[in-house]
């Protein structure tokens, strides 16, 4: 596409140059040829003039010996003239020769004729009578060859006195042949030179326009590609999408995909921009390598990539392709010695599907992608029928800022229940957004947008303040619960965060040991050293820390946590899965031997609760007891004392169970996604 666009104007420019240079060259050629022809004729005249001068001085003047023609010629003078001119006239060196007085009388004529001479009133004769020389080429006729006619004064004596007029006709053909040969040679040389010049100019033009073409092509390429990854940029993507949509209108099926990397900001923040750039390059390479040739991969900016997949097969095939791409993208990357797994959300939108513009397509893919960011599937397909749950990140950020000002956020709490006593010791704060239009929003619907912006700081501050205020309220109401707050990875990437917490504790009048901060293991993924420093500083304040995670427990080596949370994924099939049971049991043992309490998250059934009791788990939370609610409801459900006692019993006493659970840390957005679907 780019090459075709670049070549055509370049060739046109070249043709224009060539044509334009042809004009002056033609003009030069015309003028010079005219000049050569003119000077050829001039050469002939000069030859005639020179010959006549010689004849006049060497033949006529000596024969006349100063005689004045107006007085007539003596016999002796006439005889001398005859003998001087006879041979030249006979041999044709001179065609005709006449001597005339100033009054026009022919005093001497080569053939004795007294007619056929120029008239006395002829300008040529008048000029000669006045002392001038008139030279003219007389074109040949059938009966007479071409001649140079010279009419000039006769100056017969040394004193320079003109005494009459000489009229002489000299054969022109020999002169003409010579001058024409000279002219032809000159014109040939000129033609060769001009053709050479033209060829040279054409070569320069070609060279210049080619350089221009290449320059333009390079420039166009640069303006349409992302310098970091070499992928097409937003503009080129938009063209590709326009083309695809145009083909889509003619019935071709295809898909437009938006891809957003998860946690890219953290990579940039913790490993630096250099690592971020490298990560983007890896992503770009993997994306383009995993696609077909017709597909277009573009980097739209930041960590946002996009693809156009024209001539797609069935939707199923497209989804399979994208899943494969996502899988290949997720392979481990080593960045500055840190091993990372790239996760990305794919928003897919098929066309034509009623899309009018590329903007429509992008918006659809965008909303699908945001669903994907928070749903269990990495590849989300936009369904025109589904309610428009996803909204654009920027809108969300703007609204969230306003929500903080207008106090539209609320905190819900989920109790942690001591398994052996059934007592609530701690409640975990979970943020909710009472959106004026969209209703009550769960963290996954707005937290990623907050984490991707500077909003995360005011949001964390708001949550801490509100939690401290609520803690004060329930303490006043006689409830002895500590409060747990989830931290974002971005909180752990900022050293001054510990100071901020200390300051907020002071302002809220809360003892540090009443606060419990929870972090996920993924928070350590990007700069574990910095995260460890922040956690250490927080622990030093006297705040107790917990770590939640489904993978390794390496962080336990260096940092003293007071609590380990067991992810719900281990609990889902717990009673029936021997392996899960073994893992959970070991984690409990491990945590206990490190002096940590163990809290199981997402307990939904009495079976699981019972098993956890026997396994020695300390605490649990989940829908079995209570879904996240305002603290007053927690208070109502559990009262001042133990509302529900779970007794560890080998017999599995049936207990009412909630169907679903919510157990993920709030702020980091890992709440149970199924809850929203």
């Amino acid at each position, binding site marked *: 596409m780019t090459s075709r666009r670049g070549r055509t104007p370049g060739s046109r420019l070249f043709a224009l140059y060539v044509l334009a240079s042809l004009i002056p060259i033609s003009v030069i050629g015309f003028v010079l040829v005219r000049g050569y022809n003119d000077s050829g004729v001039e050469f002939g005249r000069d030859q005639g003039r020179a010959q006549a001068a010689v004849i006049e001085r060497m033949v006529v003047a000596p024969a006349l010996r100063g005689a004045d023609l107006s007085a007539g010629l003596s016999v002796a003078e006439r005889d001398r003239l005859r003998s001087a001119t006879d041979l030249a006239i006979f041999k044709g060196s001179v065609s005709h020769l006449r001597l005339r007085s100033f009054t026009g009388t022919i005093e001497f004529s080569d053939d004795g004729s007294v007619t056929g001479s120029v008239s006395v009133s002829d300008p040529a004769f008048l000029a000669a009578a006045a002392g001038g020389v008139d030279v003219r080429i007389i074109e040949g006729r059938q009966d007479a060859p071409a001649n140079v006619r010279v009419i000039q004064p006769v*100056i017969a004596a*040394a004193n320079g*006195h003109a005494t009459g007029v000489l009229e002489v006709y000299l054969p022109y053909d020999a002169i003409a042949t010579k001058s024409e040969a000279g002219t032809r040679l000159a014109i040939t040389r000129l033609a060769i030179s001009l053709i050479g010049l033209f060829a040279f100019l054409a070569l320069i033009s070609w060279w210049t326009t080619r350089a221009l073409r290449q320059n333009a092509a390079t420039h166009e390429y640069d303006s349409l590609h992302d310098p970091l990854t070499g992928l097409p940029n937003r503009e080129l993507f938009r063209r590709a999408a326009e083309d695809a949509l145009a083909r889509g209108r003619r019935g071709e099926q295809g898909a437009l995909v938006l891809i957003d990397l998860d946690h890219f900001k953290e990579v940039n923040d913790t490993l630096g921009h250099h690592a971020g750039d490298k990560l983007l390059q890896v992503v770009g390479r993997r994306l383009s390598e995993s696609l077909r040739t017709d597909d277009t991969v573009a980097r739209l900016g930041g960590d946002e990539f996009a693809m156009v997949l024209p001539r797609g097969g069935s939707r199923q095939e497209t989804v399979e392709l994208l899943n494969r791409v996502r899988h290949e993208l997720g392979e481990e990357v080593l960045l500055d010695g840190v091993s990372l797994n790239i996760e990305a959300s794919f928003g897919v939108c098929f066309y034509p599907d009623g899309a009018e513009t590329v903007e429509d397509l992008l918006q659809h893919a965008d909303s699908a992608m945001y669903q994907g960011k928070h749903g269990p599937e990495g590849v989300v397909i936009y369904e025109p029928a589904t309610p428009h749950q996803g909204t654009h990140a920027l809108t969300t950020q703007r609204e969230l800022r306003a929500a903080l000002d207008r106090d539209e956020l609320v905190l819900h709490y989920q109790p942690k229940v001591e398994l052996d006593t059934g007592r609530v010791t701690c409640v975990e704060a979970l943020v909710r957004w009472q959106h004026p239009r969209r209703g009550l929003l769960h963290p996954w619907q707005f937290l990623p947008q907050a984490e991707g912006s500077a909003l995360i700081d005011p949001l964390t501050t708001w949550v801490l303040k509100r939690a401290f205020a609520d803690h004060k309220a329930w303490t006043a109401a006689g409830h002895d619960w500590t409060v747990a707050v989830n931290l974002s990875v971005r909180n752990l990437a900022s050293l001054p965060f510990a100071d901020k917490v200390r300051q907020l504790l002071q302002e809220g009048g809360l003892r540090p040991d009443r606060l419990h901060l929870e972090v996920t293991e993924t928070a350590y993924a990007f700069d574990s050293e910095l995260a460890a420093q922040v956690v250490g500083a927080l622990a030093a304040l006297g705040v107790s820390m917990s770590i939640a995670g489904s993978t390794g427990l390496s962080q336990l080596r260096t940092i003293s946590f007071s609590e380990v949370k067991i992810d719900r994924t281990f609990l889902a099939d717990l009673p029936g899965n021997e392996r899960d049971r073994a893992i959970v049991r070991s984690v409990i043992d491990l945590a206990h031997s490190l002096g940590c309490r163990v809290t199981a998250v997402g307990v939904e059934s009495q079976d699981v609760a019972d098993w956890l009791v026997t396994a020695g788990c300390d605490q649990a939370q989940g829908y079995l007891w209570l879904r996240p609610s305002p603290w007053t409801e927690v208070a109502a459900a559990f009262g001042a004392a133990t509302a529900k006692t779970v007794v560890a019993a080998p017999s599995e006493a049936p207990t009412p169970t909630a169907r679903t659970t919510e157990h993920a840390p709030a702020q980091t957005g890992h709440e149970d996604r199924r809850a929203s679907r």
Partner: protein
Amino acid sequence: MNRPTSHHLRIAGYLFLVAATAIPAACASPTTPASSPAPKASFDQALHDRLPQPVKNRGVLRVGTEASYAPMESFAPDGRTIIGAEPDLGTEMGRVLGVHVQITDTEFTDLVPKVTDGDLDLALSAMTDTPERSKITDFVDYFSAGTTIVVQRGNPAGVTGISDLCGKVVAAQRGTTQEDLLARSQKNCGTKPIVVKKFPTNADTLVELRTARAVAVLNDLPAAVFLVNDPHTSSSYQLASTTQYEPGLYGIVVAKGQPRLRDAVQGALEELLRSGVYANVLSRWHVQAGAVTKITVNSNQ
């Protein structure tokens, strides 16, 4: 040439001056006045009244000249017009006298007879006023010049003075003072006299010299200087030496029986001298070195 003995005059300064001014004259048209406000001679009724009745009737003063003596008088390249310092002086004189001056080419030896016969009113042809001539006609003297020897460039005959001409061929114009000078010089040659070839025009004598049929030509200084400086002739001729022989005065020839005409001519020349036209004309032809300060009659002493 009034004296029988040769009168030598060193003319180096004269030569230098003329040579320096003659070169540019060859390039530029000699009729271009050098300075801005050209002086003008005014018509003089009293002088006009002195002209002979036939002249007044005709309104034309017939003046003869032999036009082969550049820059004094010669044919223009057209072969018809006569130009030079003397034609210009004649024209200016006519302006003062209120008549048209018609200059015709006349053989040198015919000038005096034609004036005495009344075929010409005046002769104005670089003719030196000599005692012999002034016996026949009156001369109104207006210019000073002497004779020099012109030889081929390179001076192949090694001529340095008149005495070197003995035994050699010299071309002379018939009827000139140079002819007389050569005749007078014969007595110094002994047994090897100068072979003098005589021609009707000065141009003819120069042809002889150019074609080596003569080793020298005697010319008045202005003509000789012009000859050796003009680009057409300078490669053929040079001066044999810087010596000027028998300096004399050029005179306008007037018939003895025309004293009123003579006085009118003298008056007209005096007017030209007074008004600066005289000096202007001589400068125009680069012969101002021969200028006189006073117009005299028959002052051939």
